[in-house]
């Protein structure tokens, strides 16, 4: 069974404890590949999120429709380590996230 994402306040909403938020380094996200149609060319972002679900929601709020493309068509490299795109994936503070085209096998 997948770990359940904690209930309560969605991760991307700024916390009531503003100091917490200020102290936590934002996640740096870069899109690669065929994303421009969604984002009008913007490829790099800094977002205050703690897991992949929050990240996808934040990007999708800004660029509607991109969430599904990222979920289905990409893999993600977090500080260089490649993962599938999974909601519960933890994003450490200040980490570097790249969305890359998904892998083929042989």
């Amino acid at each position: 069974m997948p770990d359940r994402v904690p209930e309560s306040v969605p991760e991307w909403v700024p916390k009531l404890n503003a100091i917490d938020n200020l102290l936590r380094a934002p996640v740096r996200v870069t899109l690669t590949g065929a994303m421009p149609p969604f984002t009008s060319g913007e490829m790099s972002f800094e977002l205050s999120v703690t897991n992949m679900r929050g990240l996808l929601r934040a990007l999708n709020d800004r660029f509607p429709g991109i969430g599904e493309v990222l979920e289905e068509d990409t893999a993600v490299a977090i500080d260089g380590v490649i993962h599938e795109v999974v909601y519960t994936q933890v994003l450490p503070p200040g980490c570097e996230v790249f969305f890359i085209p998904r892998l083929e096998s042989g």
Partner: protein
Amino acid sequence: MLKKTENQISDLKVVGTRPVRPDGVPKVTGQARYGADYSLPGMLWGKILRSPHAHARIRSIDTSAARALPGVKAVMVGSDMPEQSFSYIGPDRVQVNYWHMTRNVMAREKALFDGHPVAAVAATTAAIAEQALKLIKVDYEVLPHVIDVDDAMKEDAPLLFDNMITRGVSPEPTKPSNVSRRSEFKAGDLEAGFALADEVVEMSFTTEPVHQGYIETHGTLARYGADGQCEIWSSSQGHFMVRAYTAKLLGMNISDLLVHPAEIGGGFGGKTVVYLEPVAALLSKKTGLPVKLVMSREDVFRATGPTSGSSMTVKMGVTKDGKIVAADGTFKLQAGAFPGSPVMNAAMCAFSVYEIENARAVGYDVVCNRPKAVAYRAPGSPIAAFAVESVVDELARRIGMDPLALRLKNAVKAGSPTIWGPKHGYDGFIETIEALMAHPAYKIPLGKNQGRGVASGFWFNGGGESAVTVHVSEDGSIAIASGSMDVGGSRASMALMAAETLGVPYDSVRSTVSDTASIGYNHVTGGSRVTFATGMAVVQACEKIVDDMRARAAMIWDVPLEAVSWQEGAAHLTDAALGEKAPLSLKDIAAKRAVTGGPIVAEVALNAGGQAPGFSTQFCDVEVDPETGAVKILRYVAAQDVGRAIHPSYVEGQIQGGVVQGIGWALNETYVYNDKGQLENTGFLDYRVPVASDLPMIEALIVEVPNPNHPFGVKGVGEVNIVPVMAAVANALRGATGVRQHALPMSPPVVLAALDAQAEEVVGA
């Protein structure tokens, strides 16, 4: 679930040993059943009619005479399958388009390659089915065809698809072409980079398609019932893939299709798609009887996916003290009759072993009248590596630096940049170079007509979805079931990892592969993912069993859970204050399973990430016969970082097998088409793969830089070993003859012509 491994298991007792594999005896006694080995009562024989033309419009197909032949029970054509909408679905790199896929399984408007299926028949005997094929009348309008990638890209090339507009080009082209897509990856400033170079080398190369060459042809048996449920026995690299694609192409509910995994006789990527299953299932549906459909070797060569051929140009610059400052590559790969060459992989992998600040890789996916390309062992990467590693070899010569030293100086490690965005996550490459530098054979002096070549390679390796179930049987023995097809001994590796985690003897663990109804979804066996991802699931499931055992032991002893530990395959009472108890083995606890809650089962389903890429560095010594151009491999040493070798014999086997496939790719394998676009070498006599007498012993050097994201440190093993081989052989030839080869295969006539040309030049000078 994604659970980062906190403590890597150390002090290993079984992992790293070399026990006999659990599926071994059936395979050495002829009892193991592969795709063509199944039969059912009342079974019919299916045969496929294939286009003799490389490119033709299909005006009509008249099957009436075939239907009338006694013994024929059904005939089908492409339009008997539901139409699929035209859209590219899925990952950028591997986009599937079901409109293309259904036409690859059976043609509709056009035949696009010699061997393209156009109709199929099911009959009571194979002979009658063959006869029926001859009675099917197809009215073809033969069209001009195009075979090679450079020809297919020319202005006036015959078009396979009248409406193909190249994707990835902005602004969008107005005219159709055979270029399905363009991809580009870039970092830094090329001009500035090349300006820093003391030496610049730019060379062009071509490679031919090569087939995966599995000795087992495709074979399947399908039984479609009157209730709309279908069973398929098929050898493939993924029975869940077979189920998904077959259901999609036939418009079925996925759960109405049950696929049984037959043993597979080689895949290497070529069996990650379907050819026969939808046809056999549909024929079975029409007839109400099981249908067996097996390809001949000729069918396999004419109509199943080889990997792409290519036309490439690579330019690289280096300073005189060995720093690579810029790299620029253009990679044109032919996709065959439908889009989907591995060109994106080629572009991404091409420079991935080197830390180069200024680099660009551009890729073109080009269609032409040949069978559709399918994955082949690190798809795309070996093709690009042939070009790149040849150029790097020239760079080393220009500055007078040892090729291993040049690689060491520019080697990537954890934190190094890539041109496709993220930085590298892992070390491992440097260690493979150092392993070769330390190897005594690297210093063996060479004689006349002999040469030594070095090359390196990179491959991503995969993670993805795996599901595993572990049962403790009533006598305490263990059964592991996974959904990952076993191509090369993974059942043994799963059993080793389970035995290690549980602390039990290897022989008490049985490892099997379940059908699609019996276990959760498993991604294909490929991408070097199974020991990593399915292995991770096995370990996590066994850890759950351990927790379960401790809980049951606590119940049996009536003690708190914290007082129970699990060591060496048994539960121990650790708190002396609670008394002395003999340890409880799996057998003891299994005997008490009913009172402690019921059957002992654990299941883990995950989508694995955190896989580490593969790096390999290799050297090869060759001797050339100047009279014939024949190349003899004198010795071959391949170092590969595998993270941790779970079963070293199978790890060595993967390295040796990949190297030998690369040697065939380098020296002999190619497709020979006549001027009508028909394949002439449709068998192993003229499609020359390496045989035992061609080769020396291949030395596999296992390098272990563990992957912290896997409980045993595993990195995928199967693929990267093929990536450097063609360049290593070409570089060795360069050393032996003084001539750089720009085209694969480097067969005797090609080498001889190059030697003669060089001799003429010398004479002429």
